[in-house]
């Protein structure tokens, strides 16, 4: 992908694309959009650079918030928290940070990397660690392919900096989550330091451009009163032959939630219009499996999204309500997430579902 500059006019479009890629998770991004607008107005645009243009030994870092989306809507955002983490990481590494990568492009975290890039005055790499969003921070491609999360720097709005190092990425995630909880379920992290070469090999490439493409297709379709789903399918096909399927069109007839282990588990039930067909979508913050009339039609890591039936605006798992008229759609996961090694971490069995991944390409 060519390098490009992200300006104020791109913010809503990229954020909308990030929302769709959140697979039902990732949280509401309004305050991040607003902060980014101010930052870009003050400091100028942010460069989005293709991973291939990074020097092989360039220093990049992974960034994102760890916590509860609802807390983000109340505590909003403090630049200092992000700046502190970046500064601490640079000190710890003994070298300046040359680029930032979003840990997850899905949801509000997609924008947090652009904010970090703006504050530091460095580019954001056109890539991310998940190609979407996942509940645990080590459900990330670099970890799947053997990179260490250490050192991880976590910061709070109170100006505290915690450095976590360990040989198990899963245990690092556990400790970081404890820090987040102690701080009211929100902290900012900079982790998985990577060289340019490692980014090229282990990150999901082209993510920020993909978010823009999705957002742009939907925005254009809405303005010109064309079918947004058709526009989305065309954009994804051009972006790299990414398959997308419309799995269901109907209304929400039930949404059950249950809190277990600090996550929100639940099931959304839908009925078609006109009636006759049923769909269920299970989630653990992010939507994990969709079944139509009891038959499985999509599973993680494919990106399952529930969207407004007309506008295709994203509806997160915390925003699903009885009576909403919606489409359930699914985007094909990046290839990096569907290898056997990856499926052990992000496939259905990793979430306790007793079935194997089935690509949406095999769906009608």
């Amino acid at each position, binding site marked *: 992908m060519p390098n490009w500059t992200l300006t104020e006019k791109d913010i809503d479009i990229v954020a909308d694309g990030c929302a769709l890629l959140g697979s039902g998770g990732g949280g509401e991004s309004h305050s991040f959009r*607003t902060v980014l607008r101010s930052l870009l107005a003050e400091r100028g645009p942010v460069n989005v650079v293709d991973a291939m243009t990074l020097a092989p030994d360039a220093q990049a870092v992974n960034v994102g918030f760890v916590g509860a989306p609802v807390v983000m809507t109340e505590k909003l955002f403090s630049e200092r928290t992000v700046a502190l983490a970046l500064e601490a990481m640079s000190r710890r590494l003994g070298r300046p940070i040359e680029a930032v990568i979003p840990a997850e492009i899905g949801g509000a975290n997609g924008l947090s990397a652009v904010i970090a890039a703006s504050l530091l005055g460095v580019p954001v790499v056109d890539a991310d660690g998940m190609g979407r969003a996942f509940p645990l921070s080590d459900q990330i491609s670099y970890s799947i392919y053997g990179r260490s999360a250490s050192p991880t720097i976590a910061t709070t709005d109170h100006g505290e900096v915690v450095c976590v190092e360990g040989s198990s990425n899963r245990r690092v995630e556990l400790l970081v989550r404890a820090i987040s909880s102690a701080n009211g379920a929100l902290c900012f992290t900079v982790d998985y330091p990577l060289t340019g070469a490692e980014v090229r090999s282990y990150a999901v490439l082209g993510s920020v451009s993909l978010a823009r493409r999705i957002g742009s297709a939907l925005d254009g379709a809405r303005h010109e009163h064309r079918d947004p789903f058709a526009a989305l399918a065309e954009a994804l096909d051009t972006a790299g032959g990414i398959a997308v399927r419309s799995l269901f069109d109907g209304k929400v007839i039930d949404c059950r939630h249950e809190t277990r282990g600090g996550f929100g588990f639940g099931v959304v039930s839908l009925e078609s219009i006109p009636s006759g067909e049923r769909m269920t979508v299970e989630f653990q913050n992010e939507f994990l499996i969709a079944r139509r009339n009891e038959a499985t039609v999509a599973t993680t890591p494919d990106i399952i999204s529930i969207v407004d039936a007309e506008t295709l605006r994203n509806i997160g798992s915390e925003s699903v309500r009885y009576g909403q008229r919606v489409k359930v759609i699914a985007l094909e996961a990046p290839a990096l997430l569907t290898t056997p090694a990856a499926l052990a971490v992000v496939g259905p069995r990793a979430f306790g579902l007793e079935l194997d991944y089935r690509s949406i390409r095999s769906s009608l």
Partner: protein
Amino acid sequence: MKRIGIDVGGTNTDAVLVDGTRILAAAKTPTTEDVTSGVREALRLILASGGDAARAVEAVIIGTTHFVNAVIERKHLERVGVLRLCLPASASVRPFIDWPADLRELVRGEVALLPGGHEIDGREIAAFDEVATRAAALRIADAGIGSVAISGVFSPLRAEHEERAAAIVRDVLPDARITLSRDLGRIGLLERENVTILNASLRVLARRTTQAFRTAIAESGLTAQLYLTQNDGTVMSADIAEELPVLCFASGPTNSMRGAAFLSGLSDAAVVDVGGTTSDIGILKHGFPREANSVVEVGGVRTLFRMPDVTSIALGGGTRVRTNPFRLGPDSLGFRLIERGRVFGGPDLSTTDVAVARGLIALGDPQRVADLDKELASSVLDEAKRLLEEGIDRLKTQAGDIPLIAVGGGSFLVPKMMKGVSEVVFVPHHDVANAVGAAIAQISGEVDQVFSNVSREEAIDRATSLARTRAEKGGAAPATLAIVDVEELPLSYMPGNCRRVRVRVAGELA
């Protein structure tokens, strides 16, 4: 109980006298610039035709778009001092950050971010700072600002810091008009703060308006209580309306839908209110308008108001009809229909002319449209039907046909049979449906709060109990209270049993 309902609309002020389920009298008079003259006239007309029954009313309920219009038109708004209890959180997202520039210019006075606010589990983010808060209050006082908006992180959960800040402001500025964000519900700091600021900027207008309404009532010789209708189709006492005018914003469409429900006897149906310029379509669920899902902007300011999910289409009694090529609207003659409409001797063709030609309504001089081309008339009515069918289809969330209640002065344009509609219901007093909705409105109480470490049932019980208390405080008869809506959402990533519960109850005026 006898009540008078008054709807102050953009063009007309409508009034009805209701006794239980009977409509005893109705009146319509043009809305005046000062609002109250129109209200006084409407009351005069009702008293004239309603006689003794009218004089015996115990409540006058007014629905008005006055407050929302003030925001939209940038008129009659006060400058506001804002205190936010949040530091060290939210520092980069300042109050007013996402407001349209012109409104921000008008309303922003002093702004202070202060230590405080709470975490989602109830702990303080930082200790309340008396000294810093007092200094901020003094700056507000020095700036000559009289209206203060106070918000705090997670205040719907714990509001102690907002209350302490309010006490300090009152100490420094005894006459200050203070709005606390915790009274305006809703998780989402920026949106809640926006609503709190809007409310603060409307306090003087609200006081002036409710005083004027009270005066109009008293001068009419009535000793009735004054209520205003709010966004969810229920009322609140005038005292509360004076303090929380933002709760009146969506009165118009809500009242017409509730009126339609009452006049038809249906509680689950689509409603179309055909006015002069637009038709508003909404869906009734259990007698109340179904609410929109998305964030609502008022005058360009982002809020989380519960507003009715209403779709407006460009079809009304005054909609222009053009030929060569054929086009229906979207513009309308509006109030100029009476000068420029063909049946009134004017040059312009509108839907009203077509309706008169077809005998759907008797207005003006039918001779003036006797030679109207029959095919043109059919095209107009077919297009109107198509627009309505499309609008209804967009809003439906269930399969199968639903009934459609047609109200509004232009409802003669609604055909008797439509796709997706099981039956079209026309009702008496359809042209004052808004005022009827106001007259029959209920009192509600709402709670939206996060509960930690209690069971789901316990959380809903506590929320219901709090909502009932609020409804009673608002004037509801306790015995008539019923739950209108319960929503429960467990919170992801949270330790323990954390859930957000929203409960709304409504009942009859006590």
